[in-house]
């Protein structure tokens, strides 16, 4: 077991972990406010990447392309809420989750129709090149991915903690009846949570595309990884989701690097299952519970 392999696996784990954490954050935002498990979150990430690629190929400079991609994805997030979730808001959790699945199928089909089946990539932001460190390599886009996730976390923290809107969102999550009684429109907050999740997903999608490529069908596996991250770490807190994402990322990368090849996926997931069973409420307890 070479040191450089271990180091490379750790770097890979951090990068993957940040991607999964970003996905988990999108799930957290929606679940926290509406108690809906949005299984179309991966599609928002996919749309963010695909749209950015399209706008760039039309000649729009990168930053503008990302902004446009985020706008279009946000519109789809709003559509998901208004057309699909809101009319069914009294249905059971399972029904709501499967409604998002239906939406995800439709998005996937439309993407296949519009863009075809091919894979697309982007150049690293600002043309960043790789860094070599003690026998391991950090890809140029990796710091952008990690940075994006950090910014997301800090941004959400400030948003939920310091702004009126953010506090209103949190109020809805913690106590919907009370929130309504002080005049907060729960419906508007729900819409906002979907819009926010779509935006976060789109940013994540644009940022990871130079690293991972994108295509019409990358949404579903991403959603699954996001679910793992959210459940493992605890979907009731943003910190939980981040810890969960990192755990999934490190498990995946370290077993790929260090475990017997061919079995490494099963081993990684087996480890995660052990964690699940040991602490099913999530690694980080929900607010208000003893740790």
């Amino acid at each position, binding site marked *: 077991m*070479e040191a*450089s*392999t271990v180091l*490379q*696996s750790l*770097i*890979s784990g951090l*990068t*993957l972990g940040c*991607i999964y954490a970003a996905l988990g954050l999108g799930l957290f935002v929606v679940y926290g406010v509406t108690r809906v498990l949005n299984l179309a979150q991966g599609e928002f990430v996919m749309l963010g990447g695909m749209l950015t690629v399209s706008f760039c190929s039309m000649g729009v400079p990168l930053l503008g392309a990302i902004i446009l991609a985020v706008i279009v994805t946000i519109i789809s997030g709003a559509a998901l809420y208004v057309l699909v979730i809101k009319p069914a808001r009294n249905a059971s959790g399972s029904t709501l989750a499967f409604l998002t699945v239906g939406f995800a199928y439709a998005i996937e*089909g439309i993407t*296949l129709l519009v863009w*075809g*089946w*091919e*894979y*697309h*990539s982007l150049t690293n932001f600002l043309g960043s090149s*790789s860094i*070599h460190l003690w026998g*391991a*390599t950090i*890809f140029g886009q990796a710091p952008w991915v990690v940075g994006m996730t950090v910014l997301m976390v800090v941004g959400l923290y400030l948003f939920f903690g310091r702004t009126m809107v953010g506090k209103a969102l949190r109020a809805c999550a913690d106590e919907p009846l009370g929130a309504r009684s002080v005049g907060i429109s729960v419906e508007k907050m729900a819409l906002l949570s979907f819009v926010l999740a779509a935006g976060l997903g789109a940013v994540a999608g644009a940022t*990871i595309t130079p*690293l*991972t*490529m994108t*295509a019409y*069908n*990358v949404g579903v*596996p991403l959603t699954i990884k996001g679910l793992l991250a959210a459940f493992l770490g605890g979907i009731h807190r943003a910190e939980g989701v981040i810890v969960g994402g990192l755990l999934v990322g490190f498990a995946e*990368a*370290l077993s*790929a*690097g*260090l475990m017997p*090849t*061919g079995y*490494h*996926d099963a081993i990684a997931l087996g480890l995660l299952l052990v964690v699940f069973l040991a602490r099913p409420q999530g690694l980080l307890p929900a607010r208000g519970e003893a740790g």
Partner: protein
Amino acid sequence: MRKLGLILSCLALLAVGAAGCASGGGDTYRVGYLASQTGPYAALGLASTEGAQLAVKQINDAGGINGKLVELILIDDKGTATDSALGAQKLVEVEGVLTLASATATALSHSVIPVLNENKTPGLIISGTGLIMDQLGAWTFKPSSCEFDYIPLPLKYLRDDMGATTIAAMIENSGYGEGGEHYLSPIAEDMGMEVIETQHFDPAATDMTPQLANVKSSGADSMIIWGSGPAGALAIKQAREMGIMIPIATTPAQSSLRYYESFADFYEMDPAPACLDNKPTIWPQLDDSDPDKAMCQKFEEDFQAEYGRVPGIYEAIGTSFIWFIADALERADPDLGDLENARSQLRDAYEQTENLSLIIGTYTMSPDDHYGRVVPKEVLVSFKDGEKVLVRTHYD
């Protein structure tokens, strides 16, 4: 009672869906085409569908076969074994096709074979592995490729052109990868090389740096990447970015121009990876004495004109399958008034295929050999200054 009404209405829905159109008799050759239009193999399926559609269009524009037009009936296999079997059954039973081509992944074509054999309908499967040979039965034909035919080509490149003796194998976790892994070691050994490291990756993996770190530390002096999904191309990029500069040989999927456009800088790092590919992509570089040059030129130009892009290996397979069927139809001239008999006549004609030169190979079938590739036609290409360059053919 109301529940029963519900069930019956659902069944009615099914019956409507399943009744389908009556099997057309008459005066067209109905050919079924089962491919992945959605699902994990959609890239393979849609590409080959376009190749097939082009061939059918050309045949019909030229007046058809034996004066009859060819009707191509497309069905999505959705990338699952169940839907493949159902799709094959629908084509055979409801659409009443004379024959069908199944351009789906190996695992899926396994489920098509029993349908063909049971319904006594001749069919072609794309499966590119030798592992399936003993299961074809009397009605399935495989005018495609087998690993034992084409693995020597990249190995010769690594051994003779690059002076390598040890190989690190990056194998995709898929049926395709398993076939490659199975044949790679023994064939390499026969050629005096050794696979000293094997790593696996998911077809949709986005980060293979841990596996590549293991490749690096193994000290192998060459690498083979075996996969059909996007991860294989990413592996080339990531390997080069990590400073792994040993010669790389790959399967056809990695030679797609789309990947090259995304990772051009890495693809052109010396030594540029050598990818299995098919002749139409580099036909101008073929020797003038190559008998396939004209055919490949025509195919590439026609495909460009129709679809606006260069055809890859899957498109070539789709076209080749249709030409294989067309050749047999012409010889058999089956009697369309009796479907059962017509299918049997066509099957016999498939078995009598002799020295048929297609883009992907030259085939001579027989009752004992439903693979029949007598001349493999893969080439090895690389990239230089934005263009594909011919590196080797089977006959260098």
